[in-house]
């Protein structure tokens, strides 16, 4: 079922403190829909539950002491 993108825009924009002007809403809705399609594609990837490695793992620098 297609998610209610307008309801998400209303809730998330209020939470983030980002006003979405009426004239910007159609574009925001369209791009949110594209992102939702991408997220759905990512959900089909067979990731191993044991594999939690993120690509952006933070590594502290080596320190000279």
């Amino acid at each position, binding site marked *: 079922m297609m998610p209610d993108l307008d309801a998400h825009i209303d809730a998330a924009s209020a939470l983030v403190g980002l006003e979405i002007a009426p004239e910007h809403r159609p574009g925001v809705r369209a791009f949110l829909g594209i992102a939702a399609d991408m997220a759905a594609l*990512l959900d089909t990837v067979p990731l191993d539950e044991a594999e939690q490695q993120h690509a952006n793992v933070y590594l502290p620098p080596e320190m000279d002491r």
Partner: protein
Amino acid sequence: MTAPFATAAEIAAAVGGGATSARAVAEAALARIAAINPSINAYTDVTADRALAEADAVDAALAGGAAPGPLAGVPYAVKNLFDIDGLTTRAGSKINRADPPARGDAVLIQRLRGAGAVLLGGLNMGEYAYDFTGENAHDGACRNPHDVARMTGGSSSGSGAATAAGLAPISLGSDTNGSLRVPSALCGVFSLKPTYGRLPRSGSFPFVDSLDHLGPLARCTHDVALAYDAMQGFDDGDGACARRAPEPGMPHLRRGVAGLRIAVADGWFMQSAAPEANAAVAAAADALSARTDVGAISLPHAQMGRAAAYIITNAESAAFHLARLRANASEFDPGTRDRFLAGALLPAPWLARAQRVRRWWLARMLESFADIDLILAPATPASAPLIGADTLDIGGRAVPLRPNLGLLAQPFSCVGLPVATVPVFAPGALPLGVQLIAPPWREDLCLRAAQYLEDAGIAKAHPPTAR
């Protein structure tokens, strides 16, 4: 050696050998910019005084007996997200113009200057680099020198256009999802997107820290390698810059391709590209097959890599710009604004999963490289669309142009692979580009194959004809 399409190597040899002066080269370049730039809108800032001062410094050093640098007297220009001392770094935006001028040059500019190169100015780009088209509501569309009614591609639009039009033998751009490769393909020039972390981004305005790369464009492989070699080396101003010693590309250029295991990406890549884009790849593959085996590889998970890149880009860039979006959404370019706004609203699990898939997709690519040294793929789905177009035909389906013009480039920048893009097109035709994709840190393989294709007459940056 002031001809508009002289190579950087030719210019450096002429200046270093005393056949001409750096000042004469700079003056000719500035005159050509004044004559040609109004029709293509590649430059947003021309640093004429600085160019002449840098050229005079090169000439004075040579007169004093100094050894010429590898880029002695070579003019170049940079995408306007690079800091240029004394200029505000606009990054294609209107909002940033209120910022104070940069108090120093980006590290890559410092390094090119150290090699003797002469900065001509800053170049047009898509706002905040979130662009594949070359259109810009604030500075006007950058126009393709091969047909000024058509897009340059973006977001390094001015870089592609200036180098194609003979207004800068070398230019610098950035590539987060394809922003070097798309304009280099659509404008018909060479480029190198190095491995993520190879070239320091210190002193450049970011787009997506997780994915941003910087790199050179030029009209031949040799010039790309000259610039690339002059810019390598660690810098601690960029937290993602690898602590690697420089690995020059120049010594590898003429090693040929014999023995390299090469494969053409088929499946999704071929299905997503127009016949002419696939024909360009086939022409390159055919030339390479004269010296080595060329097979095929399907890369069935490339769409997942592309999707991960899309989500990471959308979320991370929107978070970076959130204060500007809250305060000044109406001041953004309409071509980028709604995507930025949407990115600020994405659920967090989407981003976390995208980062996991990115790592997973890298593992799949590394498995592929166990049997292959180099992969060929189209750089764009088709040649340059008309300026103003908003849909693109992908596999017989009309899709929104802005997020999709770079879809064939995104899977590879997602995991930071080095990619050379070479122009493959007939004189007078609209350019197309072929991506040469190698394992991490193997820019040498990209450059070897690019040089081979150039020597074989397949890859060539034909000068634009009047259109």
